[in-house]
């Protein structure tokens, strides 16, 4: 079934590959002892009409707010859907279009806290809701947007069941090549 869908998209849709850079801002308590950090990402996608499906990988290394060998690495793989709303149509003699995009994604984060040689690792599912601006011209697609990321953690043991949500905000800019 999945291979059939991929083949149908190969035949009828377009493919894209790109990269993103940005800043990851910790929130929901994490900002008390973690500073914002650079965010790097790569993505592969396929598109048809205003819709895009992307598979993305992102990395960020949050650091302590004071000088310390502490670091919190976040690696995340996500699959999502984005919908483009075209606002600006190409003028005469131009192929440029621009508009806004809304996106949603589900992902999985691999986390690592290190302090000197001490290390804690973890993994957690995540959800994304994003909104941003895009511009297409020829084979290139530029984007700039905000991504709201929520990581969900739970401890299901007995009466001490706890669910913890952690919110991070990413401001991302990206360049994509559309094949």
């Amino acid at each position, binding site marked *: *079934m*999945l291979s059939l*869908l*991929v083949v*149908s*998209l190969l035949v*009828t*849709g377009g493919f894209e590959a790109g990269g993103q850079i940005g800043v990851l801002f910790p929130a*929901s*308590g*994490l900002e*008390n*002892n*973690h500073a914002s950090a650079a965010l790097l990402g790569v993505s592969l996608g*396929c*598109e*048809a*009409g205003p*819709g*895009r*499906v992307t598979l993305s990988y992102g990395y960020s290394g949050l650091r*302590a*707010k*004071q*000088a*310390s060998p*502490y670091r*919190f690495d976040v690696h995340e793989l996500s*699959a*999502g*859907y984005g919908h483009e709303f075209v606002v600006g149509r190409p003028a005469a003699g131009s192929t440029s279009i621009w508009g806004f995009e809304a996106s949603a994604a*589900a*992902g*999985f984060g691999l*986390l690592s*806290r*290190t*302090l*000197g*040689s*001490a*290390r*804690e*690792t*973890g*993994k*957690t*599912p995540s959800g994304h809701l994003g909104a941003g601006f895009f511009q297409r011209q020829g084979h290139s697609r530029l984007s700039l947007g905000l991504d709201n990321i929520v*990581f*969900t*953690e739970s*401890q*299901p*043991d*007995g*009466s*001490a069941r*706890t669910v*913890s949500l*952690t919110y991070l905000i990413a401001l991302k800019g990206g360049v994509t090549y559309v094949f």
Partner: protein
Amino acid sequence: MSSDAARRTALAALAAIGSLWLAPLAGCGDMTLFRAKSDYFPLIPGSRWTYDVAGYTAIDSVGSDSAVAGRACVVVLRDYAPEYWTKQLTAVRQFTRLTANRGGQEYVLEERYGLVYALPLVEGSRWDESFRDTIVPRGTDTVFLKDSVSGRVAAIEDIETPAGTFIQCYRVDTHREVEAAELSFTADYSEWLAPGVGLVRRVTGPDTTKLTGYEPGR
């Protein structure tokens, strides 16, 4: 069906299948972010802890801000006796004052903020601090002082106490050694610090301290 509609349907189906692939991973979170954002040593004014110390009830509370030895600190009343603590992003320190009596007069051997916990707490992390000094209280009477402390975050555990069950607690093993003439002592103890609460259990040799009540401050 038009080719555009077919493409959209294929995209939506692919997105749905991608989400289904990720769905089983939901609930796998292992609280790493929860620990990273939690405060394991809250010094909020008005907070009050009640402990059972081998059948005896001890009450700790956080008082007001103060300044001791030229440094801003928080007053913690440990069973109504004042202690002075400082907390920064990288360390929790307690004011230590050691004195010796010579000929009816009190001499200060040590007066400083000693390291208690290195922050942030990460399982497996260690810290050491050693303070040495030579004090000559009077004449040829010399006191060699060595105050060293070493700590290790030994484990992450869930702890049950009379005040409830606390998840994701860090167990901190501490060894303290003071060499200062008649004041010399060695202490080994384990403490469990709970997120948002602080100390919930301490084991010193055969003695166990357990949290029986906690009221957070504002």
